[in-house]
């Protein structure tokens, strides 16, 4: 270790990064420039500094030439700062005596003129050299990681991730907004391409979640706030009242029969409004937990304060009803969070020409999934609004997808589910089915085979995007049956009118309406189309920019169940890796209080956004908790006595860095 009176000996390394840097900047000239900077003991350039020989070079020079500061002019510190810090440490130098000058992203890639590029690189390099001269050795600090994970969203993604973590022996808190877990998959009858019965493969997993001793399932709940950071999140969960005690309810559903409303009359959102429910209800028969909820908007006891309470009577001595239940906020500490909030189906009523919401027999695919489902509103019978069986069915692909006016992206699963629906419609009704598509996208395992199978079953395929759905002429605008789809059959080169009595719109998968609020809560970002953004599209597909927050399923991009499950397991593995590490290194750039200078005015305490500062009343000074400080610098700027300081951002360090830059611009 160096003492302050020791002579400064700075080593400078200029990386070529193949031709990435060397192609744009004269690395030899840059190295010569470095040599004449104050305190620089040696300067070198090398093809790939990050490769082993490059690192070895640094290590050897530290030992051989007694270097006590290192500057590497290379790519963004985001990429290789840890690499060079480690190399320095291996050679016995404190790892924080290393500084990176980013001459790739900030210079080589964005500067066309070679002379200009050289001058810019010189400025960056000079800044780094002057800064590192002011660096002091720092200690690495670690905090304990809470060995527990939270999964937000109980669709197939959340279920899978929770089970994997729980089976690995870790505690999991699963938060689901709806009364039951299951998500979209629970709505389907069959799943492509194998046509497995969705319930048969999903319900065992749902039950496993409920029974698993490592999983705490919080349904009918949402995340209220997230504090802390990787390893130590403190999450507040808002729990809506069910008005029924989950521990006392046995799932007999007798209260539903007992309710004073003898007929169901309120739309069941799970059935896309096609089915009706009572004030006390359950979304679907296999719901988990099998506990009904009371809808406070329509229950007579809650809205009017008066009801015969047939439900309570039916519940009898199980005595599970609690009309005085209130909303609760519960707090949980977790080390990692998996966001698995899924997607929502595109609402086609915004496209005027498909007549959704105007003509009764124009349906969305999700509505038809419910009609086909044995547990759905028609007991699995596919019928038109008047109860009759359709004879000719049109399926419109790409509704809201691949369309500059709505979503430009391809939703990836709708071709396949449209094929599945075509098959199921034919199986159940013998109807003629017309699939109107632009391209059939069937690139998954077994997908093309399934497409071919559906073709062979006699489904008609018309290559063209449907332009209009209108009632058959003469039937007025709100006719019950008889629709015409107008489409350019691009293979025939003919504009056709196809008469059908049911139209199914293969709607896009889109980000949920509240994606932006959820994104903010978890400190993550969205890509252009609104899905949550992964850290790297190829190499870090489940991580986010916020360490410790991971992604799984259709909240990250439209995807099918196989991809969702694979991603959920990947997220679980990443979470496991994190919480199993036991401890985590803190960023060194925390703030600290110089005791001698602190006047005890407490200005900083109120300002800290992370509640990391407390007052030591005895010594009359402020104390900053190093584990909580995020290095935002607010207190440093605010302290009237100049007592709050920050590691790696001391005034002298920043000033020198600026001087370095300014001298060359």
């Amino acid at each position: 270790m160096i003492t302050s009176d020791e002579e400064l000996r700075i080593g400078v390394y200029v990386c070529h990064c193949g031709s990435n840097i060397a192609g744009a900047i004269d690395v030899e000239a840059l190295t010569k420039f470095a040599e004449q900077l104050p305190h620089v003991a040696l300067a070198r350039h090398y093809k790939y500094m990050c490769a082993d020989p490059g690192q070895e070079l640094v290590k050897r020079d530290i030992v051989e030439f007694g270097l006590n500061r290192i500057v590497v002019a290379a790519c963004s510190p985001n990429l290789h700062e840890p690499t060079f810090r480690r190399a320095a440490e291996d050679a016995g130098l404190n790892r924080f005596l290393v500084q990176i000058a980013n001459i790739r992203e900030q210079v080589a890639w964005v500067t066309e003129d070679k002379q200009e590029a050289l001058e810019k690189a010189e400025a960056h390099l000079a800044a780094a050299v002057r800064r590192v001269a002011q660096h002091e050795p720092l200690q690495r600090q670690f905090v304990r990681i809470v060995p527990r994970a939270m999964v937000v969203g109980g669709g197939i993604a959340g279920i899978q991730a929770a089970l994997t973590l729980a089976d690995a022996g870790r505690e999991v808190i699963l938060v689901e907004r709806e009364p039951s877990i299951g998500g979209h998959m629970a709505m389907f009858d069959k799943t492509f391409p194998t046509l497995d019965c969705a319930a048969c493969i999903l319900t065992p997993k749902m039950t496993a979640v409920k029974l698993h001793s490592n999983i705490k399932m919080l349904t009918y709940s949402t995340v209220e706030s997230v504090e802390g950071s990787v390893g130590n999140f403190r999450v507040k969960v808002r729990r809506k009242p069910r008005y029924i005690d989950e521990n006392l309810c046995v799932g007999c559903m007798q209260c539903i029969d007992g309710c004073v409303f003898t007929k169901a009359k309120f739309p069941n959102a799970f059935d896309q409004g096609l089915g009706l429910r009572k004030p006390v209800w359950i979304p679907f028969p296999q719901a988990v937990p099998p506990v009904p909820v009371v809808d406070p908007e329509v229950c007579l006891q809650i809205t009017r304060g008066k009801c015969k309470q047939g439900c309570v009577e039916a519940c009898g001595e199980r005595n599970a009803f609690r009309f005085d239940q209130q909303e609760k906020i519960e707090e949980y500490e977790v080390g990692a969070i998996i966001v698995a909030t899924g997607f929502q189906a595109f609402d086609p009523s915004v496209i005027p020409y498909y007549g959704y919401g105007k003509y009764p027999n124009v349906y969305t695919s999700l509505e038809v999934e419910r009609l086909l489902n044995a547990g759905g509103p028609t007991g699995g019978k596919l019928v038109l609004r008047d109860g009759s069986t359709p004879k000719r069915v049109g399926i419109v692909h790409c509704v809201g997808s691949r369309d500059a006016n709505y979503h430009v992206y391809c939703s990836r699963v709708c071709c396949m589910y449209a094929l599945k629906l075509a098959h199921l419609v034919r199986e159940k009704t013998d109807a003629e089915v017309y699939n109107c598509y632009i391209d059939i996208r069937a690139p998954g395992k077994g997908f093309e085979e399934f497409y071919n199978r559906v073709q062979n079953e006699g489904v008609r395929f018309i290559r063209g995007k449907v332009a209009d759905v209108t009632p058959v002429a003469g039937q007025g605008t709100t006719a019950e049956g008889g629709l015409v789809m107008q489409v350019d059959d691009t293979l025939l080169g003919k504009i056709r009118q196809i008469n059908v009595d049911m139209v199914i719109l293969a709607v896009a998968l889109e980000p949920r309406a509240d994606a932006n609020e959820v994104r903010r809560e978890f400190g993550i970002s969205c890509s252009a189309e609104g899905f949550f953004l992964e850290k790297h599209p190829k190499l870090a597909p489940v991580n986010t920019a916020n360490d410790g927050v991971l992604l799984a399923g259709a909240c990250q991009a439209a995807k099918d169940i196989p991809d969702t499950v694979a991603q959920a397991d990947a997220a679980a593995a990443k979470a496991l890796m994190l919480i199993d590490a036991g401890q985590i290194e803190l960023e060194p750039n925390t703030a600290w209080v110089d005791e001698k200078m602190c006047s005890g005015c407490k200005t900083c305490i109120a300002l800290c956004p992370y509640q990391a500062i407390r007052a030591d009343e005895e010594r009359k000074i402020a104390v900053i908790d190093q584990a909580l400080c995020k290095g935002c610098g607010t207190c440093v700027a605010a302290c009237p006595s100049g007592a709050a300081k920050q590691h790696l951002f001391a005034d002298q360090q920043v000033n020198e860095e600026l001087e370095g830059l300014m001298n060359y611009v």
Partner: protein
Amino acid sequence: MSTARKQAGAELLEQLGKSGYGKPPLGCMQCGLCAATCPLGSAMEFPPRNLLLQAASGNLDKLLESPSLWMCVACYACSKRCPRGIELTESLWPALRDAAMQRGIQPPAELQETFQNVLKYGNVLGKSPRARLDWTKSLDVRVLDLSREPRPVDVLWLVGCYPSYYPRNQVVARAFARILTQLGVAWGILGTKEKAVGECDRMFGEEGLFETLVEDNRKLFDKYDFGKLVVLDPHAYRALQNFYPRFGAWYPAQHYTTFLAEYMEQLRPLMVKPVETVVTYHDNCCVGRRCGCYDPPRELLGLISGVKLVEMAHNRDDSLCCGGGGGGMWLDAHIVAHGGQRLSDQRVREAADSGADTLAVSCPYELSRFEDAAKVTGLEGRVKVRDIIELLAEAMDLGERSVA
């Protein structure tokens, strides 16, 4: 041979990309939405998708000789819906027509006559420029003719060809003059110096004629000191808004509906007479679909007491074209001869279906088109066609008794 053809196609598309009229059509995915959307697509030998495909492949010979080249009425529906944001209406169609004429292929005769009229007389009707002020003869408010009395004004009103010359539209012009005066607007017109703004010519590939008009009008406008241009003709609005700026001719312009909607509060107390009628409003393609302006006309109608507003099955973005746009006014015979239907007939039927007894319009062409259509479809007694200006004037008690 085939490579040469391909190259011709590629060059054409590339040229379009640089023309500044909308996005280049290179990203077409041949989905056919445009073709099946086009109100005349079924009658066209080359509906938009196929038009683009053939052009891109360089198969120009058949394409340029096909009658379907002269069937697009510039309704903008295909462009509005195209999932790849390609605006065929204002790019490929005019370019192909231009290419056809350069090969000596003649557009339908009626259309040619219109172009001749514009060239010779500066108006589509072939009337004498000196007669441009005839509509003001029976007018009871003062008209400031800037060409005689140059003076700064807030509004330079381009009266337009039909409102200047055609009796049915002259009524509307006079009503508008009275409304402007009642509102205390400082307005003026260009008198006998006014010329067509030009739009149908541009849509019909008469780029040269259009450029001349832009130049002439620019010189003319620059002589006067005015705040903004106000037009009755939606097509003129589309041209001033979307085509003129391409030639560096940028003038603040408003269609009268948007203009009057800014006077909502002043208009409200002037509505002294209820007009008891059920009205449906026809969104014209230029102000509506092309420029995305749907609310002002409805807000104006909403001012009139007694008016009940209903919507037709197709409205706003999804409105049906009257068939008169982009030169369509002079193409009915050509279109019908080649198997197309008269779009105005279909629209009037829809108006009747909506339960309205008044079909309100805000375009000079539509008045006569829909009135004819009402006759043809036998709906004359059931649906009355009126410009929003007429309805407002009636409610303000500024109507023209002799014509009503």
